[in-house]
Structure formats: C-alpha cells, structure tokens
C-alpha cells in the first residue's frame, strides 16, 4: 500500500534562504510576504480608481460588506463606532493580510515551485520572525498611543509608580504600604507587556506551523482523501487565527486609549 503514502520531511523551523542582497538574506517567507503586500496594494489602487458613491461594481459592494463586518466586530470591543473607525485602518489591514497569507496555502501547487532546491514561497505565518515582527509592531503601537493620549510621564508612571507611593504616604501610612505593593506590581506590568508580544506571536505561529506538520504526518499515513479534511481545518484555523490576532490587538489598543 505504499503508493497511498507520500513521505516528506517535517518542515524546518527556520525558512530557507533564497539569495542575499548585500549581506541581507532573503528567505522564501519574505518573497511571499512581499507578493501578498503587492497584491493588497494593487487591489487597493484598482478599487480606489473605480470608487463610486452609489456602488455598482461587485468588487466595491463586496469590500463594503467586508468593512461593515469589520467595523461591527470592532464595535463589540470598543463600544463606540467613532473609535472603531479610528482603529480600522491598522486592524483591518492586519486582518486582511493574515487572511490572505493563511488562505493562500490552499492554492494547489503554489508552495511547490522550487528554486535551487528550496521552495520559492512558504507561508509567512509559519515563520516566527514574521509573526513576532507584527506582534512587536502592534504592542509598540499601543505604547505610543498610550503615551499620546495619557502623556509620556503618566504612561511611564503606570509601570514605575513612584508618584503613587508618594501620594499614598501623604494620605496615611496604611495606604502608603498598599502603594508599595502596587509599586512592585508595576514591574510585573513590564513583564506583562513582553508576555503579550510572546503570546500574540506564538499563538499565530504555533497554529499555522502545527497545521503544516499535521499535513506532513497525514500524507505519510494516507495521501488521498484524508488530507482534505485537514485542509478544511487549515482554512478554518487560518481565518480564526487572523480574527483572533486582530481582535486581541484591538483590545490592547482600546485599553491603551482608556486608561487615563
């Protein structure tokens, strides 16, 4: 029964380097990232040119439905349409990017184009560098937004609560000691910010990479019919994780707006 089985090696954690530009390695996840970014930009420009006040084209109607749905989703997080419209450009584009990257694996043969013994394209979210970069970007954005809306000193005061200890001791000694405990908790908040970055990036990476590994295992078990079930699961998980990443970053952004 060996004709039913396809033996592949489990994909490596780090992507293959295709070529170097001035000592800067270009990997196969990067090529697909730039391709998808290009697709989104071209799509945006084409849509922008044919934009009408009373939509007649199917493309515009479809995108209007998508954007309405995204605003509805953000409204549940922020509880105000004004805020969600403010957040939509960054959260929405991250969401669309991840949906495209996670779904593009299902195109047959797309990740099998070989160049110099390495595949030309590999799904960007199966590379920890990619998800880590976006998680750092999103959490960095929450820091900047918090500094802008609360002031730089107040923002740093959230983590190193010297002022609150001073205020506490001026009121009474008991409140001063509570403030000292809060002072220690403030340092935990710093660790909490790093934990946010790690959990955001590892969640997306782990889900997508596990999908690839499961596919390889399933192929070595039975290469017909059975992987199709896993492909449907990959599609669902890809959409779900894109949603989870964008909603969680919306939640963090919303918190950084609110805490004044």
């Amino acid at each position, binding site marked *: 029964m060996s004709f039913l089985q396809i033996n592949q090696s489990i994909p490596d*954690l780090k992507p293959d380097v295709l070529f170097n530009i001035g000592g800067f390695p270009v990997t196969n996840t990067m090529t697909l990232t730039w391709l998808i970014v290009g697709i989104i930009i071209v799509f945006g420009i084409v849509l922008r040119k044919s934009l009408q006040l009373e939509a007649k084209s199917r493309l515009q109607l479809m995108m209007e439905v998508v954007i309405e749905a995204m605003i509805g989703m953000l409204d*549940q997080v922020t509880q105000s349409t004004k805020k969600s419209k403010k957040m939509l450009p960054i959260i929405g584009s991250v969401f669309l990017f991840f949906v495209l990257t996670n779904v593009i694996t299902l195109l047959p043969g797309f990740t099998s184009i070989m160049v110099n013994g390495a595949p030309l394209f590999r799904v960007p979210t199966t590379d920890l560098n990619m998800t880590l970069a976006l998680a750092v970007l999103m959490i960095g954005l929450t820091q900047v937004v918090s500094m802008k809306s609360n002031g730089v000193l107040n923002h740093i005061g959230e983590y190193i609560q010297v002022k609150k200890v001073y205020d506490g001791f001026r009121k009474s000694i008991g409140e001063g000691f509570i403030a000292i405990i809060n002072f220690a908790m403030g340092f935990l908040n710093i660790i909490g910010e790093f934990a946010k970055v790690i959990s955001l990036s*590892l*969640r997306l990476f*782990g889900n997508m990479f*596990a999908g690839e*590994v499961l596919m390889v295992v399933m192929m070595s078990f039975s290469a017909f019919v059975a992987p199709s079930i896993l492909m449907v699961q990959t599609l669902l998980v890809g959409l779900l994780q894109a949603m*989870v990443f964008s909603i*969680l970053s919306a939640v963090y952004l919303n918190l950084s707006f609110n805490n004044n």
Partner: protein
Amino acid sequence: MELGPEAARYIAKSIATLSMLGSALGEGYLIGKALEAVGRNPEVSGRIFPMMILGAALAETSAIYALVIALII
C-alpha cells in the same frame, strides 16, 4: 537497560505535551458555559459567539506553547 539521549528527547516531548490536558479542560468548560448561556436566552447568541471564540483562542495558548516546545526539543 540504558536510555540514550534520543530516548530522553522523546520522553521530554511527551511530558511537554501533557500540559495540553489543562487547555482541553478549560476549553470544554468555556464552550459548555457559552452553550448554556445561549440555551438560556438564544437572542444574544450573536454576541456570545465571538467572545467564546476569543476565549477559546486564549485558553488554547498554553497548548500552543506546549506544542512549540515539543517541536523545538
């Protein structure tokens, strides 16, 4: 009987994946509670469902950590 480093690696992998048990329990509890809430008043199911998905993804995090660790070992 003597165990080589390879055997120790596989044992470590199996121990790391054991922590998925907690994640599975948490997710089952969460989804059960969400279904209970939907059963009590079905008209809010549209609002409960996205929250449930978000909670399930958060509960899944520790399992994903375990998986990544098991893959790295």
